[in-house]
């Protein structure tokens, strides 16, 4: 149902945020806050990869979260795996290329 996430710290300094479930208005703020704190914990170093392969639903609130995080953290913030629903919404909103997803 509603999204849950976990954070993995990789040996190379990358932080991986693994998200599953549904990302909508109820999730936007807590998710942005969580990724902000993950990025802050590495204090300017290390990529933060959002693994969205387990996201079953994402709407414009999820897109807003991604845009806000990208604006704050720039190239440090990357997209990892994308589920079909996420990929579709990013395509519709023209964000697949700007986020460097393949």
């Amino acid at each position, binding site marked *: *149902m509603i999204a849950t996430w976990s954070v993995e710290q990789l040996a190379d300094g990358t932080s991986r945020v693994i998200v599953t479930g*549904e990302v909508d208005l*109820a999730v936007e703020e807590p998710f942005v806050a969580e990724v902000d704190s993950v990025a802050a914990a590495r204090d300017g170093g290390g990529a933060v990869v959002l693994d969205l392969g387990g996201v079953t*639903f994402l709407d*414009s*609130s999820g897109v807003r979260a991604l*845009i806000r995080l990208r604006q704050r953290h720039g190239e440090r913030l990357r997209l990892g795996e994308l589920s079909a629903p996420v990929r579709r919404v990013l395509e*519709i909103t*023209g964000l697949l290329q700007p986020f460097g997803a393949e």
Partner: protein
Amino acid sequence: MDLAPPDRDPVRAEEGDDQDMAVFARDIDTVGAARRWLAAFLHRHQLPEAQRQDAELVISELVTNALRHGLGDVVVRTSLADGDLLQVSVTDSGPELPALQPVDVGRIGGIGLRIVDRLASEWGVAPFPGGKTVWAVIVSGSG
């Protein structure tokens, strides 16, 4: 982290053969609750998976707009005509009318309506004294 709020029940709901309506309180969880309410209708009518996914995305966007920009309770309606012509509408008491904005990657507002515009075969806004209804038609394979 697990947010897992209790799923929100509508304040009121009515179920017909080919149309349902429900009233939801203004709450951040209403987007998901309205989506699940619509999913039950779509399931009952055994609509194709692609049309269901589009419809769930559209109602999420319309309810999100009603919560971000509207006022009062959120009234959702859905109906099915000719077997596969699905209509969803969301009514609130706010005077602000949604309008499609020019595409500008990186701008935060207007994303939801752009998604609706892509997924719906038609959509529109019906203002009335004291509020407005935003409606959309999702046909099978319109995407």
